[in-house]
């Protein structure tokens, strides 16, 4: 998350001074204190309008994960979870954002439902049903790469109603708020609660928009290729979704519509030449881990 850059701050100062000039105020009329106040105000305005920061995204992601794991229990299989993290971390290192505030974490939810969730900040939760549905490590990597796309594009954060964040900024940006008062805290907790509900509703009920899904798929193709996985693994993963869709409309199919369209896009974009020499070794270790 970026605060205004020095050059942006400089532009804002210039714009403000230009505005003063248009209003009939001459620079010569300003005292040094007034100039200092203008510079300070520009910085404060810039920060007050800031987006959700990386560390705030982390706390949002934790709360989202806390809700999801209250619904779906964690599958505590240490070997499988470590393996999942090795695949996920490998991919994460090949994204445009290899590090996040709290780091990337991958875990398995104990449900036969076929689904995966990208919590803001970098925690990715994948169901046992999803793991059982993919056929090899490259397809598993494709699922994780798609979810990393959502994390990095901040699709979860985008689900938060802008009015909530605007209200939060009013409290956060208050000059007096060096320490939150109990009233401020209560208001922020309420806004936080609403924000979490927005994200969870999108993850579990509504799903992301078609454009967000397409962008996550395209990003996944790039991450897979960069890491040395076969991007066609994403085609395999979408094939599994399509197969699952013939028997059920629940889980990920409810939140990821348009599998046919996604397959078409991915087949076209993912048809690149890759070194598949490591594929048999990866498939073997996948079979050892996911019998």
């Amino acid at each position: 998350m970026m605060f205004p850059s020095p050059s942006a701050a400089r532009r804002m100062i210039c714009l403000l001074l230009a505005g003063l000039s248009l209003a009939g105020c001459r620079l010569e009329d300003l005292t040094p204190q007034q100039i200092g106040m203008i510079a300070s105000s520009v910085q404060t305005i810039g920060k007050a309008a800031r987006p959700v920061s990386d560390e705030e995204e982390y706390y949002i992601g934790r709360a989202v994960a806390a809700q999801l794991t209250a619904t779906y229990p964690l599958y505590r299989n240490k070997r499988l979870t470590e393996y999942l993290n090795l695949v996920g971390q490998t991919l994460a290192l090949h994204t445009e954002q290899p590090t996040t505030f709290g780091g990337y974490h991958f875990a398995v939810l104990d449900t036969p439902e076929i689904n995966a969730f990208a919590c803001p900040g970098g925690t990715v939760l994948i169901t046992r049903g999803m793991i059982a549905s993919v056929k090899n490590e490259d397809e598993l990597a494709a699922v994780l790469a798609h979810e990393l796309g959502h994390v990095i594009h901040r699709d979860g954060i985008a689900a938060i109603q802008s009015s909530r964040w605007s209200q939060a900024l009013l409290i956060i940006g208050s000059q007096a708020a060096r320490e939150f008062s109990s009233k401020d805290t209560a208001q922020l907790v309420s806004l936080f609660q609403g924000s979490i509900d927005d994200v969870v509703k999108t993850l579990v009920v509504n799903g992301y928009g078609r454009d967000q899904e397409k962008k996550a798929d395209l990003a996944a193709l790039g991450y897979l290729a960069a890491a040395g996985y076969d991007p066609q693994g994403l085609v395999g993963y979408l094939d599994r979704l399509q197969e699952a869709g013939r028997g059920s409309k629940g889980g990920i199919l409810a939140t990821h519509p348009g599998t046919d369209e996604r397959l078409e896009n991915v087949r076209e974009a993912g048809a690149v030449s890759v070194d598949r020499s490591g594929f048999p070794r990866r498939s073997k270790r996948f079979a050892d881990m996911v019998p």
Partner: protein
Amino acid sequence: MRPLTRYILLICLLWTVDAAAETVSVVTRDNAIRSESRFFAPVRAKVRYGDRLTVIGRKGDWYQVSAKGVNGWVHKSAVESRSYSASGRGRSAGGVSADEVSLAGKGFNPQVEAGYRNANKNLNYGTVDEIERLAVGEKSLETFIQQGGLIQP
């Protein structure tokens, strides 16, 4: 004050804003200054959120930095050109402005999380902590990549 002096004062203010770009702050909870501009390179120093690093150079996605008595490399996604303390209270902010200090760590932070947890006892934060605790070592990851015929980052 004469007009010329006012303009000089303004230029100094702008220069100060630019000068801040020479340092970056760590924006991840933990990170490392490495001996080379690549992941898995030996770690010369550990850094934490809010640590300020002096930028010496840049290569691709990596900053060459100086801090804690060492020179080395840190990935660009781990730092930003801002500087403030993690909590906004208690810690030295290293000469940053009052605005920066008052905004630091404000917003959706541990204080808000604590209030949220208190109001929602059914949530499973213990499991979230458990998920975050599991970390794969760099050596394991490097070996995993190698054995799978994958590409080293």
